[in-house]
């Protein structure tokens, strides 16, 4: 579905992502792990075209529709929602920008309700501002916004790491359910291997901007070949 070829990104002299090639298959849920600073987020932003790579390409079957069909859920729901924009408007914005719903206020409103329902928030939340919502609720709004433009591919950039543990499970369950229902492809970024183990079929391990290991979930979790992966696994278990 998406193919990354020799993607490299330098920030000044610092190499954040170094010559990464990767294929993401239709319908899979690909986990991307690594410590903070390993280049996961930079890679994700290059796939979405939010950052332009120093070299290399991202191939997507309908590249012109990438802005609409590839979406992202951000890590921190405190800062990823504009404090001055109501929930309903935030979710409705992609609809208007991509002219997805037949123009007409009613249709947009109906779709906003549908999206709120999909993330299990009451329709009345459309009139609220982000500050009136809890962290978990905000993250649901973030998910609804990402789903608004009817994407086929979703990047989840540590979507639960800023949330309370009790809420994390709810959000992960919701994401799994949505994936099935809408037949989405996920790139799931995390530093926590237990979260990745729950969510993903295939795992990519990154270290210092390079891929150090790729494999199916079972192989990597049960029998990691790299020392680095083993360390990541241990640190997770220790917590």
């Amino acid at each position, binding site marked *: 579905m998406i193919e990354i070829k020799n993607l490299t990104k330098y920030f000044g002299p610092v190499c954040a992502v170094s010559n990464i090639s990767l294929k993401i298959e239709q319908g899979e849920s690909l986990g991307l792990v690594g410590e903070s600073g390993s280049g996961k987020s930079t890679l994700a932003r290059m796939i979405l075209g939010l950052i332009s790579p120093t070299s290399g390409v991202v191939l997507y079957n309908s590249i012109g529709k990438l802005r609409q069909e590839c979406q992202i859920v*951000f890590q*921190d729901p405190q*800062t*990823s929602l504009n*404090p001055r924009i109501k929930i309903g408007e935030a979710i409705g*914005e992609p609809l208007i920008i991509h002219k997805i719903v037949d123009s007409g206020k009613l249709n947009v409103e109906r779709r906003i309700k549908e999206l709120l329902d999909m993330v299990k928030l009451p329709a009345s939340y459309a009139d609220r501002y982000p500050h009136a919502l809890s962290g978990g609720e905000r993250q649901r709004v973030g998910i609804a916004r990402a789903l608004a*433009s009817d994407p086929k591919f979703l990047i989840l950039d540590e979507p639960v790491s800023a949330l309370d543990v009790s809420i994390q499970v709810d959000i992960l369950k919701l994401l799994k359910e949505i994936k099935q229902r809408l037949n989405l492809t996920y790139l799931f970024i995390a530093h926590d291997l237990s979260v990745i183990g729950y969510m993903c079929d295939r795992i990519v391990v990154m270290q210092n901007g390079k891929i150090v290991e790729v494999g199916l979930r079972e192989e990597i979790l049960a029998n990691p070949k790299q020392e680095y992966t083993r360390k990541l696994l241990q640190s997770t278990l220790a917590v």
Partner: protein
Amino acid sequence: MGKNKLAIFGLSVLVFFTALAIFAPVIAPYDPTEIVAEDTMGPSTQHWFGTDDYGRDIFSRAVYGARISLTVGLVAVSISISIGVLLGALAGYFGGWTDSLIMRFVDVMLSFPSIFLILTIQAMLTPNIYNVMVVIGITSWMGVARLVRGEYLKIRELSYVEAARAIGCSNKRIIFRHILPNAQAPIIVAATLGMAGAILTESALSFLGMGVQPPMPSWGNMLMDAQAYMRDAPWMAVIPGLLILITVLSLYFIGEGLREKSDVRS
């Protein structure tokens, strides 16, 4: 708490003066440009603030002067805020050479002693009230531009801006719809303080004879008229002087109050 009370006091004064300005024709007992009595008469029940060197009613002139001074302040500040917000937003949002270009232009504008710049422009144009507004506006936007640039530099890094980009918002939409509302608090403070500055500049210009032209009254040119009569008719200077002082002080109180309020929230 103290600042809050001062701000409310300032706001009340300003509302009162604005009402005077709007209803000037009803409130002023005499025509402000007409000679209605003996010259330089002290305050009396007939002429509350006395009369000036021509025998015009100072109370009426002060009320009409409020009209001029407040209008000039408001229009000038609207111009300076518009320019400052636009250039500051472009500089802060795009960064790079756009930023360098705009900020160097700001530096150049700031390095002119602005009162002389204003006087020069006014000397080339015919000094009338419209030119005064425009000239004050286009020479006082630099502080706003710097302030707005700083806000944009800060806000553009927040993840809701990245989120806006991810859903496909245009730069224009991000600049005006996503960032501007979040930068509005300091802009409002700057506008309040800027209006005080504009009123002072208008007074200074009119005092120097380069602003609002007689016989139209402004607080500044009333002061100018008063110069020669400081001993014989001090009320001629005291009244417009006090009005300028109270107005500017009120605006400062409001600005400080707003600043404090927006600081607490962030």
